[in-house]
């Protein structure tokens, strides 16, 4: 097992603030050139979303509530997806402490997707097209994947890289809040906060120390880097 958990990039999601609006899902798809598979495909499970909002209905009529939980790749410290890939297409970045997916190495065995307890990975079932003028929306910082390749949330590593390069060029450290993945940037209730968990003064570290903090499927020992805050809203009384 890994040594005393190393940390760098992490994310806190406040479930009491999340209202399930799916803005984060949309923003993620646009930022990362995620293909639009169509309604039927998504209903069958061929959807390409990197980030999904799990919705659970609770209660009996007329006291029904919906619980929302945005789930994306948890960037596990002891990721079950990594050792099972036969070609090292997914491995642990020691510098960034996130799980890296290498598109041009993936041969599509889909073992990583089976082994992920969070069902966070998606697979390119087909070659998708962006007919003109839709191809103008593609983000040039992110590869467009062809069929047969696994993909998943990368904590917008292209934005992390850009911030690190800018900071290095200016001879300083990356400031807290400088890196905003697309989901954090677009959330209207600011339920998603991203930052450096290794810095005890960053916003994400302070929120992670909250009494409401929990991790998803924590007892599996995967050491996820996404912390959920839950249990302080009116609805739970």
């Amino acid at each position: 097992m890994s040594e005393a958990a190393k940390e760098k990039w992490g994310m806190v999601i406040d479930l009491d603030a999340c209202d399930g609006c799916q803005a984060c899902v949309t923003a993620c798809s646009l930022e990362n050139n995620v293909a639009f598979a169509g309604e039927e495909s998504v209903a069958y499970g061929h959807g390409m979303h990197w980030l999904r909002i799990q919705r659970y209905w609770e209660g009996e009529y007329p006291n029904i509530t919906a619980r929302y939980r945005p789930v994306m790749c948890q960037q596990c410290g002891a990721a079950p997806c990594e050792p099972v890939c036969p070609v090292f297409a997914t491995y642990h970045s020691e510098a960034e402490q996130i799980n890296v997916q290498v598109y041009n190495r993936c041969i599509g065995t889909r073992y990583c997707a089976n082994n992920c307890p969070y069902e966070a990975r998606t697979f390119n079932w087909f070659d998708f097209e962006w007919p003109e003028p839709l191809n103008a929306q593609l983000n040039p910082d992110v590869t467009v994947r062809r069929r047969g390749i696994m993909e998943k949330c990368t904590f917008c590593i292209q934005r992390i890289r850009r911030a690190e390069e800018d900071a290095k060029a200016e001879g300083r450290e990356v400031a807290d809040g400088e890196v905003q993945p697309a989901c954090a940037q677009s959330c209207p209730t600011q339920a998603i906060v991203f930052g450096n968990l290794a810095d005890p003064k960053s916003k994400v570290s302070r929120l992670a120390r909250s009494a409401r903090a929990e991790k998803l499927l924590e007892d599996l020992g995967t050491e996820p880097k996404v912390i959920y805050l839950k249990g302080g809203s009116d609805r739970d009384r």
Partner: protein
Amino acid sequence: MSEKSTHAHMAVFAKIDHIAEALERLREFGIQEKDMSVISGYPISDEMLGRPMVWSNVPKIAMGGFIGAFIISIALNWGTPLLYPIHVGGQPLLPVPPTIILTFEISMLGLMLSTFLGVLWESLFPSYGPKIYHPDVSHGKIGLVFTCPDDQCAAIHKALTEAGAEWVRQMEAKPL
């Protein structure tokens, strides 16, 4: 070694008892063990024929192959991650269970490949040159191939026929 001219001959028998008897007769004529050879369509043990044991190096070759493959598997299992380390799943770089599994498989592959190649090597296979042979052997008869000096041929032929040979003749080596 004498300068007498010798030729290869073959006698064919239907029963193990007869050929064992025939081998005795040949020894009485002074033919050496190395100049006698038994060919058959099914395995007959050396003891049944009264012949010296045939030594086979196949087990040694097999062991050599096992050790060679073991070394290759250690190189793959430990050499490649040490040279080009990639961290996965919070597991150590040189984990023990995968090492055991792969080392076992690759070593067994080496054992079996070298056993197979060992048979080919020891039997000098494949060899398509001319040989002393007659299809009666695969028809179920047992063949006795021997070299005898020309002046003793007739006497030996007679002795073998008495011992139960179905036929005895001088043979030319031919491609099979």
